[in-house]
């Protein structure tokens, strides 16, 4: 058997990241699990107690906690995936040159990409599973359909992971990452339907928000968790995320290859 010919070879890269994660997982717990829980407590339970009394029609008849929970699940996946696509990938490209080491073996650039995507899928699976359990504890999901929130959240995360990885592969240093978080990730977190329905935005902004991947991710996750009005439009959201991720994946491959093979 010649190494590098099987598509499963990409799993070696996943395995390498898991091996490293065994040493470094503690640092990721706060961002991936505790911070979203603080939001859920402060906004969902605390702030939500005001909203519940007034205006649940705008939330599709659900309490604010029910509305917010699945939205936070999708945005947490976006945030973790976005972070993972910046500094850690940059480290492997140029600071610690791990990709150079791997590419000196029979593995090729597409193995790196699929291996990283496999690793990201593992992270997103663990985050969304824990998050879904928390939602169950809060009594938020309305049917077993809620289990589909896990693949929906993974897809949301992968869309961002691949798109930002494509960006990272073009960067000389980490200066551009602050801009990614300031002008992309954080605005999406605030305005793509996680905290309030996008129809509350002015028309122009509502349209822009509805074009972002997080909007579709939030709508898909919320649809399956609450089995509410969002559920009807699931094919649109799913198709959007699949197409977006495919294009992002292709761009990530192209930029990474240009960066690493020259």
């Amino acid at each position, binding site marked *: 058997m010649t190494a590098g010919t099987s598509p499963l070879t990409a799993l*070696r890269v996943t395995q390498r990241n898991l091996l490293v994660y065994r040493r470094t997982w503690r640092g990721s717990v706060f961002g991936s699990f505790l911070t979203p829980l603080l939001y859920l407590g402060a906004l969902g339970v605390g702030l939500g107690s005001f909203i519940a009394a007034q205006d649940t029609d705008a939330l599709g008849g659900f309490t604010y906690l029910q509305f917010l929970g699945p939205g936070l699940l999708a945005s947490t996946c976006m945030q973790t995936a976005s972070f993972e696509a910046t500094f850690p990938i940059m480290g492997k490209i140029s600071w610690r040159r*791990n990709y150079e*080491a791997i590419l000196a073996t029979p593995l*090729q650039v597409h193995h790196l990409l699929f291996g990283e995507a496999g690793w990201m899928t593992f992270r997103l699976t663990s985050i969304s599973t824990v998050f879904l359990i928390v939602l169950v504890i809060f009594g938020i999901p309305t049917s077993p359909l809620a289990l589909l929130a896990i693949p929906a959240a993974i897809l949301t995360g992968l869309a961002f992971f691949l798109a930002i990885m494509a960006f990272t592969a073009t960067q000389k240093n980490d200066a551009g990452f602050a801009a990614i978080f300031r002008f992309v990730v954080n605005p999406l977190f605030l305005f793509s339907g996680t905290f309030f329905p996008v129809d509350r935005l002015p028309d122009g902004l509502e349209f822009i928000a509805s074009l972002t991947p997080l909007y579709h991710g939030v709508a898909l996750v919320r649809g399956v968790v609450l089995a509410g009005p969002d559920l009807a439009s699931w094919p649109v959201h799913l198709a959007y995320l699949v197409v977006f991720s495919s294009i992002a994946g292709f761009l990530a491959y192209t930029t990474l290859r240009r960066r690493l093979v020259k």
Partner: protein
Amino acid sequence: MLDGRPALGRMIPALTAGTISAPMTTTPDVLIRARALTKQFGALTAVDGVDFDVHVGEAFGFLGPNGAGKTSTMRMIACSSPMSSGELSVVGMNPTKQGAQIKARLGVVPQIDNLDAELTVLENLLMYARYFDIPGESARARAAELLDFVQLTDRANDQVEPLSGGMKRRLTIARALINEPELILLDEPTTGLDPQARHLVWDRLYRLKSRGVTLVITTHYMDEAEQLCDRLVVMDHAKIVAEGSPRELIERYSTREVLELRLTDATRASLNGRLDSVAERVEDLPDRILLYAADGEQALEKIHAQQIPIESALVRRSTLEDVFLRLTGRTLIE
């Protein structure tokens, strides 16, 4: 992979004509063959039409100042960098089409260590073995042998990050040997190491060579080239400017001995070329004068006979450094 026998003992490549798959126009004992090999980065030509052959079992050196094109050449051999034009064959295969198969048979020691800093010494080797599809049991046996070979057995379970530069280098070398390569590419293997660490690395490389492994080394250390290389090429400005064994190059481009003279400024000002007849070549440096001669003592006697007052004189054998400086100049390259 290992079939029970000590693997390092088996590293003598069974490289007869029959085992080379799909040979190009190479003779059986040519492991790397380059003709008009060229690498361009946009308008910059990093490697400009170089020709060379590396034979099985030899230690072959690329010598040259920074930016001469050594690393670019190495990266093309390692199939990490596609060539722009020319012809290249590595272990009998074509890097453009058979990169993965070639890499399976190479060991690469890069200029800058790229170990997995978060993993332990042993894990670095085991993980690398996975990339070559080496089964777990063989990988563990092989890793244990290699740690012993590079004297890191007692650090096997330590994390890589706090290790010294010399230890990281040795681990990188061990990692490059995990797939029992028949050809090892070393890009400036001892740059940045202290003398003890350098000698240990040299010793290990020498042992590999004596086991029949082919080494290709880039360096700008003359002593390293003289110690390790059977044959070398000197690169300058993207081209090969000389080729031969260290001995041959010294004979061709220098004299057997060099006389280093220090004179007072007044004496130097009054020389009027009187030294030219004493040696084959005279080089005027700011702090001293170098006289290249077959017999340095004889040259010194002639100078004494001319009653030129000397502050100090030193006769030494010519080194590769003399060749190198003659071929690539004394101007600082930056």
